[in-house]
C-alpha cells in the first residue's frame, strides 16, 4: 500500500465515482428516451432501500458476490483469468449440499459438520479449477478457454447429479429437484434484524475472514509478493527464481478453493439444499465486482455491496412500472466505464510520478552539477 495522501486518495476514488456518475446519467437518459421517469425510478429504488429486508438481502447477496470476486482477483493478480468460478462454485455447492444433507452426517457434532461442509466445498472448487491449471502447465492450454469449457461441463454434470436417481430428491409439492435438506445441526444460524423477515447469513464472517486472508497473503507474505511479481513481469519473476508453473498451479487451486465457498453462506444460511433455484451466474458477477474493486479487499467489498444492492432493488422497479433490466444496463455501463477510467487514471499517475521525480531531481541537480 502506498503512502496515503489526500491527492492519492482522491485519484483512487476518481475512477469509480466518475464511472458511477457516468452510468447513472446514461441510465437516466435511457429511461427518459424509453418514456420512463428517471425520478420515479430513483424514488422506487430509494423507497426500497429504506426497507430493512432489502438491506439484509443486499448484504447477503454481497457476501457471495464478494467471495466470487476474491476468487477471481487471486487469478487477476498474476494475470491469470479464472473465468470458471461459476462452474467451480456450482459443483462445490451441489456436492457440499449432498454431503451436509446426507443421513450419516446426522450424528456428527454441529461444528465439525459445518467445518466438513466448508472444507468439502473448497476441495471441490479447487479440484475443478485444478483441471484447468494442469492443462495450462502441462499442455499450455489457455486457462480462459479451459475454464469456460469446464463451466459448460459443470452445468451438465450438476444437472446429471442433481437428479432423484442420483444425489437429489423431488421437492414435495413442486416439480423442483433438490438435495436432501440439511438438518439444523448442519446449518449456520443467521442474525435477526428488526423489521426484516430475512436474516443476515451467519457466514458473513466467512467473507470477512477470506477478505482479510486475501489481503494478508497478498501484501504480507513472500508468496503474495511472488504472485504480484509474476503478474507484473513473468520474465523478471523467472529470473528471480520464481517457478511460474508452480505459481499457476497454486494460485489456480487457491482461486478455486475460494470459488467453492461462493454458494456456502446461502446453502447453510437460507436454502439448506441445492435445488434448481440455487443462484447461478455469480461467478461472472464476481469478475465485474473484482474489476470494479480493483482487486483490492476493501474496494471489492464496496463493489459487492453496490452490486448486491442494485440486484435487490431491481425487484422494486417492476412495481414502479420501470423495466428491471435497467439495472443490468447500469451494471454493464459501470463496468465498462470503470475499466476505461482506471486505465486513464493509471496513465495519469505514471506520468505525474515521473514528472515529480524529474522535477525533484532533474532540474536542481543539473544546474548544480553543471556549475560544479
Amino acid at each position, binding site marked *: 500500500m502506498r503512502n496515503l495522501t489526500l491527492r492519492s486518495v482522491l485519484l483512487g476514488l476518481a475512477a469509480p465515482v466518475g464511472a458511477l456518475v457516468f452510468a447513472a446519467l446514461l441510465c437516466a437518459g435511457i429511461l427518459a428516451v424509453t418514456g420512463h421517469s428517471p425520478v420515479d425510478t430513483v424514488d422506487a429504488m430509494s423507497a426500497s432501500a429504506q426497507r430493512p429486508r432489502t438491506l439484509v438481502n443486499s448484504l447477503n447477496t454481497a457476501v457471495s458476490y464478494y467471495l466470487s470476486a476474491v476468487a477471481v482477483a487471486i487469478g487477476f493478480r498474476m494475470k491469470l483469468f479464472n473465468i470458471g468460478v461459476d462452474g467451480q462454485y456450482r459443483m462445490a455447492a451441489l456436492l457440499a449440499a449432498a454431503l451436509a444433507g446426507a443421513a450419516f452426517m446426522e450424528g456428527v457434532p454441529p461444528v465439525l459438520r459445518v467445518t466438513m461442509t466448508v472444507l468439502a466445498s473448497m476441495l471441490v472448487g479447487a479440484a475443478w479449477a485444478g483441471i484447468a491449471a494442469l492443462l495450462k502447465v502441462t499442455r499450455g492450454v489457455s486457462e480462459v478457454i479451459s475454464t469456460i469449457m469446464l463451466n459448460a461441463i459443470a452445468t451438465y454434470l450438476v444437472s446429471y447429479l442433481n437428479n432423484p436417481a442420483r444425489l437429489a430428491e423431488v421437492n414435495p409439492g413442486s416439480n423442483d429437484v433438490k438435495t436432501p435438506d440439511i438438518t439444523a445441526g448442519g446449518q449456520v444460524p443467521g442474525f435477526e434484524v428488526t423489521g426484516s423477515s430475512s436474516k443476515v447469513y451467519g457466514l458473513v464472517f466467512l467473507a470477512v475472514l477470506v477478505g482479510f486472508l486475501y489481503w494478508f497473503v497478498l501484501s504480507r507474505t513472500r508468496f503474495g509478493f511472488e504472485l504480484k511479481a509474476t503478474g507484473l513481469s513473468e520474465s523478471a519473476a523467472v529470473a528471480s*527464481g520464481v517457478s511460474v508453473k508452480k505459481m499457476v498451479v497454486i494460485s489456480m487451486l487457491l482461486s478455486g478453493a475460494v470459488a467453492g465457498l461462493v454458494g456456502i453462506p446461502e446453502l447453510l444460511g437460507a436454502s439448506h439444499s441445492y435445488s434448481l433455484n440455487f443462484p447461478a451466474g455469480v461467478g461472472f458477477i464476481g469478475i465485474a465486482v473484482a474489476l470494479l474493486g480493483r482487486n483490492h479487499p476493501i474496494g471489492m467489498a464496496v463493489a459487492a455491496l453496490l452490486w448486491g444492492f442494485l440486484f435487490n432493488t431491481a425487484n422494486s422497479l417492476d412495481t414502479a412500472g420501470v423495466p428491471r433490466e435497467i439495472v443490468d444496463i447500469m451494471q454493464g455501463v459501470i463496468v465498462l466505464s470503470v475499466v476505461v477510467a482506471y486505465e486513464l487514471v493509471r496513465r495519469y499517475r505514471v506520468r505525474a510520478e515521473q514528472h515529480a521525480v524529474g522535477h525533484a531531481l532533474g532540474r536542481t541537480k543539473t544546474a548544480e552539477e553543471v556549475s560544479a
Partner: protein
Amino acid sequence: MSTEPPAGGAPAPAVQLSAITKRFPGVVANSDVNISVRVGTVHALVGENGAGKSTLMKILYGMQQPDEGTIAIDGAPVIFASPADAIRAGVGMVHQHFMLADNLTVLENVVLGSEPRKGVGLDFATARARITEISSAYGLGVDPDRLVADLGVGERQRVEILKVLYRGARTLILDEPTAVLVPQEVEELFGNLRDLKAEGLTILFISHKLDEVLSVADDITVMRRGTTVASVLPQDVTARKLAELMVGSALPVPELRESTVTDEAVLSVDGLTVVNADGRTVLDDVSFTIHAGEVLGIAGVEGNGQAELVEALMGIRPCSAGTITLSGRDITRATTRQRRESGMGYIPEDRHRQGLLLEATLWENRVLGHQTSKPNVRGPLLDRRGAKADTERIVAEYDVRTPGIEVHAAALSGGNQQKLIVGREMSGSPVLLIASHPTRGVDVGAQAAIWEHIRRARAERLAVLLISADLDELIGMSDTLSVILRGRLVADHDPAAVTPEQLGSAMTGAGRED
C-alpha cells in the same frame, strides 16, 4: 526563404535556440540550452548518451514543445507545434533509423506524403525532374527509379537527405548519421555535407564520435546533463579535450589495479552445451573456471551464445550436457532460486525485462530475486521494514538518485535503475556475480560508479563473469578474457597485452587462422 540580414552585421543565425528548458519524465531534462548556428555551416552537437541532444533536436523539429525558451529561424521567432511546422519553416530532419518503404522506388519514397498533383492524378514527371535536379545540384547521385530495397545503407541515407531537401529544407538535422555507416561511406557523407554547405545550406550534426566531428564541423557545441556547456571551434580542441568537456571531468577509465586472483575456483563450467527449442546448438562444449577475486570477460559479437550462456548459468534455460559447479557443489540441475540462494548475483542484459518490476516500488524491487533471504523476509512473511531499510541503504551507498523508495522503478532514469540493480545484486555477500552489459545505456558517472563497485567486490574475493559489448570495458575490467564465437569459446587473451583491434578480429573469427 527571404531573410533580411540585420543592418550592418552578419546575417541572422540560421537557428537560434535561447534558454530552452524541457522538464521530462525521469531523465535528464534540457535546461537553459543556448545554441546559435551560423548560416552555411556544419554545426556539430556533441554529448554523451542521455545528455539531452535528442530531446533538443526533437524540440527543434517540432516533435516536442519546450517548457521555456525560444526558437528563432533566420532571426524570426517561431513556435513549432509539429514537424509539419518545422518543415514549413525550412527545418528538416534525417533520422538515425531510416524511414523508407523498401518496396517503393526512390521517387515514390521521396514524394510520399507530399505528392505532386496534376488534377486528380500524380505528377511523377515533375517530381522526377526535381529529384534529378536536387540530386545533381548537391552531388547526391541518387537515381529516382531504383527500388529502395536494392540500395545500400549509404545510398538510403542520401535518399533520406534528398527527401528532406525535396520538401524545401534549408536547415538539416542529422541525428547520428554515421552510426550505421562503414568508414568509406562516412567519407562520402562528409563530401555531401560539404557540397550542401557550399550551396548555402545549414547542417546540424549530432554525434558522439569525436574524430568525425573534428573533421567535418565548423562549430561545435557540447552538451552535458541537459545543458550546453561549451561552444568551441574544431581547430582549438583535441578529441580528448572534447571528451572531457562532454563528461565534465577527467574521463573514467575502466581498469583494475593489482591482481586479486586466488587459486580457489568459484565457478567451474565443464562441457556446457545448450540446444535451443529449434534444435540448434547455441552453446557448444563451453568450459571455463572463474576463481575468487577474478573477473572473466567474455567478448563476442552479440548473438553468439552470450545470452544463452548467462541464462544456462542462472538456471533459466536448461542445459543439454555438461556440468556447472559453484564453490565445489554441482548446481547443474539446481533451480534458479537455489542458485541465487547459494550466492549468485545477476545483472541482466535487459533490466526492464529481467531485472525490474517497473510498476512496483523501489523497495519491492529490492526484494525481487532475493525473496528468500534476509533482510527481505522472515520465514514466509515479507519483512517490509527490513526491506525498506535496506533499500534506503542501497539508495545511499550506490547513489541512486530518487526522491524516495516508494516511487515506482519506472520513474527512475536508466542509470539509476541500473545502480539499484547493482546494489541489490551486491547485497548479501554473493560469491559470484554474472554481469551482462552492466554499464549499457547508463551515463558516465553511473558507469564509473558501477566499475568501482565491481572492483571493490573483486578485492573482497567476488568472482565475476563479465559480458560486454564495450571492448574497452572488457579489456580494462577483466583478469582473463575469452572470445565467444558461434556458441564456442574460441580464444583466450591476456587483457594486459591485447588491443581492441585484435579482440575485434578474434570476435569475427578472423583471428582463428593464426
